[in-house]
């Protein structure tokens, strides 16, 4: 590095910056390893077919084991089908979504659930519901003139 003298303060700053960034990196890596998963390949459904073929034709909630549920939803202009899902408190629910028309989003309040719903693709995301109550889910991507009315809810019922 001929002729490239770096001021000592500047060198310190660069090292400090690099160290901070490395820390962030480690945090990301850790979150990626410890159970934190982002959506990936979950298969495809031709947009024209999702309304006529299972499992999205008659969307439903299935119990896969004690406290483990799978919910299949269609996000379409301008509603979620179904728009209400009931599970007992303490359940883990895996959501599968697709869209027969335009892009939508799926965000459940007070949870980490937030995915895009893209025609042709299946989005999968899992969340645990411990506290009884209503958790509304909203479409978070512009999907046309009545985008703002598109919502539904997960009703978490107290265990009896």
């Amino acid at each position: 590095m001929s002729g490239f003298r770096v001021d000592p303060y500047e060198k310190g700053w660069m090292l400090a910056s690099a160290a901070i960034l490395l820390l962030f990196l480690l945090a990301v890596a850790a979150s990626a390893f410890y159970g934190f998963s982002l959506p990936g390949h979950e298969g495809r459904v031709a947009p024209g077919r999702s309304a006529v073929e299972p499992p999205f034709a008659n969307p439903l909630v299935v119990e896969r084991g004690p406290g483990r549920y799978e919910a299949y939803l269609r996000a379409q202009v301008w509603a979620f089908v179904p728009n209400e899902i009931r599970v007992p408190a303490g359940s883990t629910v895996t959501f599968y979504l697709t869209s027969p028309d335009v892009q939508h989003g799926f965000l459940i309040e007070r949870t980490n659930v937030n995915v895009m719903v893209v025609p042709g693709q299946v989005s999968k995301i899992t969340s645990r519901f411990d506290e009884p109550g209503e958790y509304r889910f909203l479409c978070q991507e512009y999907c046309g003139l009545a985008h703002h009315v598109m919502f539904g809810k997960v009703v978490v019922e107290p265990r009896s």
Partner: protein
Amino acid sequence: MAENDFRLEERLTAWHIGIALGALFLGSWFGPLQVLEHIGIDLYGKLAPGIKSYYQGLSLHGVLNALVWTTFFITGFLTFCAVHSLKMKLRYPWVNILGLVLMVAGLLMAAAPLLLNAATVLYTFYPPLKANPFFYIGLTLVVVGSWLTGFGLYFTLAGWRKAHPGARTPLIAFGSVLTMVMWQIASLGIAAEMLFLLIPWSLGMVQGTDPLLARTLFWFTGHPIVYFWLLPAYVSWYGMLPKQAGGKLFSDPLARLAFWLFLVLSIPVGLHHQFTDPGISPTWKALHAILTYAVTFPSLLTAFTVIASLELGGRARGGKGLFGWIRKLPWKDPSFSAQAVAMLIFALGGVGGIINASYSVNLVVHNTLWIVGHFHLTLGTAVTLSFIGITYWLVPRLAGKELWSLRAARIQVWLWLIGMLPFSLSHHFLGLRFGVPRRTMLGASPYLSPEWNPLLILAALGGLLLWASLLLYFFVVVGTVFGSRKLAQPAEMPVAEALRDARETPAWLDSWRPWLVATIILILLSYGPPLIDLVRSADLSSPGLRVW
């Protein structure tokens, strides 16, 4: 200079910047309409039949402010920068003239469907929302026109380098040309999306499209576009602002290093906008997340160099002590204060950006009002207020007039800060705490919660102040161009000297090939496999819909 040697160049610049300012002016009217709608004051009825919906207005706000204002300002400003910094006229002016003609033609083409409610697809135009073909063709022409501007500048720089063998490219010209190179590579994504997917589809030549492939091509450009917006501000922060502050550029080599790192690292990070997308492997998302942290490094470098340069200025003006130099900076010069406030806000925006980029938090804030808060700090202030600061010397220069009301300009800057802080902070909070979705006509929404209202009101108040600041700005600009007294002496572009002679800058910081090669390799590594995967499995099965 008795005669202005750069008549043609400056007329070109004036056209670019005039159109940019027109776009900012028109686009900004929708800002207050949006914040008011969110608190239940719906003024859209008054705009009918001109503007038919909140979403048509939002499409105009996004396209005019994020795409037109930025692109036209940047192509104009960088043309000015390059020729004045090289002290050399455009080598082939017709290339730049043709570029402007294409940009204007494209703008008119895209504007028609937008205004006729035939392109209410927001500025991201995600298919299968399907706009009128003129919208896509027009935007494509704007991009192609901006490429021509870039080529015009490269030819000019190449001529300069031939005439000055062994000399270092002046920093301002270097940064300007680098910005255009980065943009040309980055915009290949949108160009491919337009040419291969959207234009044939909107013309009815193919029946369907693949929305995920389109999204991915869009974000290939969509992240680096923010550096296309930011780098011209950096050209000013590094190359001009130290001079305006009465100081010198602290380090010329480190400034160049930062620019090179932006070229290399801006593009291979776009998947961080698609963390929550299905159909893209988390492995590639993680790689992009890592590279996203890398690209903050040159920004941190910039923070140091620029602040150190300003400190040199403050001390040269008699400032003493650890922080005493800050008070001595030329705060009364609106061109300086606008850019200093822009930097301050950018620091906040940068912290938010690092948070967005982290995988886990992203899930919470993705597509919420947090994002709206974030980009009004970065694009809406760091970039826009810097450009405004630049126009405080550039418009007088181009018009040959004195700045109309220095006082109004000074007030404008602080009004912006006072408006932006509540506007942005409440949006951040609404997104993080309540998950309030963005791009949503909240006032008309059945799920609006009463607990959101106090923050929405605060955001609206801030937004109105911000808008007032912009109106004041336009008074100053119009007053300067049409009303003000002639300048006795032409206003000159401020050019900061480096603390140490730029001739000492090593040659590897002024040679293009290695950096371009690194850029391309990194793009191939980070985007090659996921894109090949998407193209291979592409399924053109989504028919277009017009659901607005």
